[in-house]
């Protein structure tokens, strides 16, 4: 048995306190924000859509990461929240002329409410792991079917955001490829990162990680497990709904498959897994890789290099590339890029 000197005993908590401090992540965020703000000035206008896509990926992955990465509640149905955000926005705009800025909060609240109700049912009956993932998946699919057969949200044809004649901040609509979209998206990403950072340092956030690591222990120490889990789910759903609202405004169109389809759930998961599950920066890194990658592969298909001639005019290669990336990352780098780099840095 070793006897620790008072100095050593004191050192440990101080060290932990330091790593929990917000200064470093905030500095990193500030640097990223400044660098990202310069992007429109170096990027040609036609490339702006890739940048906006990266931002949408990032918001969705940040939302997913909170619930499934930090919370350990593996969601396979984040399309449900994304779709609620997208549909709330376009429905209120088309039928009631409500500003997207107001719909943003309504959609986020609605998604949070849905998350709390489904989460309550799932945890009330102690659904775990695979069953929970399947339930979230089934729920998103159910919403897709309902949207397809409900005429007041446009049925299977969906909803078109009405085109305005002039730019409008209030209606969040600008000329195609206008830099405003990029800056609004960037602001949303920065706010979502801030929310993640602050939440993880809040009591509820610390409990969330504790519950993920050992639910029974957390419970026996008096952590209000149900309330904490539902809070995390609600926050995650709200963030994902914001991505949905922004998507609807940028592409000016939603339909049941875009909003609630399986592909959308996958797009929330993939950047987080590639970048690093349960890391703050992982979703951003993943989005930064996936966005340009899917554009690159689809441009290959439009103008294939010689040896890929037979692929001209086909589609599917973009998803193939990121499916392979997903499998390789899970098999070879289960901690994702950021997680692996972090570990390497510590063991250096």
């Amino acid at each position, binding site marked *: 048995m070793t006897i620790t000197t008072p100095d050593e005993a004191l050192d440990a908590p101080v060290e932990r306190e330091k790593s929990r401090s917000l200064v470093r992540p905030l500095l990193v965020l500030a640097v990223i924000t400044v660098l990202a703000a310069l992007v429109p000035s170096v990027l040609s206008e036609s490339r702006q859509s890739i940048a906006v896509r990266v931002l949408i990926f990032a918001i969705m992955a940040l939302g997913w990461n909170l619930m499934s990465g930090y919370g350990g509640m*593996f969601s*396979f149905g984040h399309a449900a929240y994304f779709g609620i955000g997208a549909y709330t926005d376009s429905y209120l705009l088309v039928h009631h002329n409500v500003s997207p800025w107001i719909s943003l909060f309504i959609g986020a609240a609605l998604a949070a409410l849905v998350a709390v109700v489904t989460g309550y*049912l*799932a945890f*009330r*009956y102690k*659904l775990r*792991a*695979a*069953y929970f*993932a*399947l*339930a979230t*998946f*089934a*729920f998103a*699919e*159910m919403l897709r*079917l*309902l949207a*397809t*057969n409900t005429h007041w949200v446009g049925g299977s044809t969906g909803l078109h955001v009405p085109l305005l004649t002039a730019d409008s901040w209030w209606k969040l609509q600008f000329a195609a490829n206008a830099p405003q979209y990029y800056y609004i998206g960037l602001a949303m990403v920065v706010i979502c990162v801030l929310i993640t950072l602050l939440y993880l340092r809040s009591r509820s956030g610390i409990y969330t990680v504790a519950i993920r690591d050992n639910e029974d222990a957390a419970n026996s120490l008096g952590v209000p497990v149900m309330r904490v889990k539902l809070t995390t789910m609600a926050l995650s759903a709200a963030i994902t709904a914001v991505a949905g609202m922004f998507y609807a405004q940028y592409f000016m169109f939603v339909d049941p498959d875009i909003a609630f389809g*399986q592909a959308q759930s*996958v797009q929330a*998961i993939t950047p987080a*897994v590639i970048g690093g599950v349960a890391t703050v920066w992982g979703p951003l890194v993943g989005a930064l890789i996936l966005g340009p990658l899917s554009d690159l592969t689809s441009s290959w298909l439009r103008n294939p290099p010689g040896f890929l001639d037979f*692929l001209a005019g*086909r*589609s*599917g*290669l973009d*998803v*193939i590339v*990121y*499916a*392979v990336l*997903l*499998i390789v990352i*899970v*098999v070879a780098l*289960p901690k994702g890029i950021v997680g692996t780099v972090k570990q390497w840095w510590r063991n250096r």
Partner: protein
Amino acid sequence: MAVSTRRQLSLRPSPFVATMLLVLALFVVALLRSGSMSITGQALLTGLIAGGVYSLLAMGLSLIFGVLDIVNFAHGSFLAIGLFVTYEVVHQTGANPYVALPVAIVVLFVLGALLQLLVLNRTMGSSLESQLLITLGLSLLISNALLLFFGGDPLSANLHNDPGVHIFGAVANLSRVIAFVGALVLALLLYVLLEKTSFGRAIRAVAANRQGAGLVGIDVRMIYAVTFGLGTACAGAAGMFIAPFTTITPTAGDQFNILAFVVVVMGGLGNIMGALVSGLIVGLVEQLGGVAIAGQSPLLSVFILFLLILLIRPQGIFGAKSS
């Protein structure tokens, strides 16, 4: 979790009976809503016949889960490969689609076994989430590879002559009847293989205790590969059987993916016989629900049933208390 095929003999009546009462209630609602015995009777027959294919598909999925602990999200995509194999055979040789059955089974078996040997065996024992992510990646990979090579236009592999068969006043196409009977025959063959052969005993031994099975000389990795192959072969055969009456597209497997999960959870994850019976029930619920909740997709009632089962009885309706 063990693959259990015997437990169904001791099924506790309550959840199963409750489910059957639910189906009965759905039947009555469908009858009242449509006001026609012939429409409801037709739904009953169509549902039961569709259910046979769900049973076969889900038995493969349940086998994979029971032995390998993998929630195989690519199962529907393997069915899609079965569809395209059938299309290719018909398209290249002009033969009857049923000629493709052995081809589909062999191709999917080899593909599944190779995948397990080369990719999934590396990650055995890692978290459920990473297995789920890998099979999710596989499902994206398969459906988009099919899209890349065959394009997105719908294809078909119809029978030249597909007459209606009259059964108790309702009509079903010959191809659907063949699919039903064929699927059940293969399902029973799989059951016999697992229960009555020494090879099946080895699979069950690995499912029950992999260390123990390894110690008595069973090549566990080989059993894994063969089991995954058997599971995907079920999906391939199911794909071949439905090919003559299905629009063949790269994403045709998606809706079967979720259906198979509903069946597997209902039967109890890993319970092969449970999957067989539940497949028929899900087929009935889908068709009767389509009549009872008019105007919505028939799948909606399946999802409602699924969420009910997940919440109330995630261990399935066949009493077997698992994990």
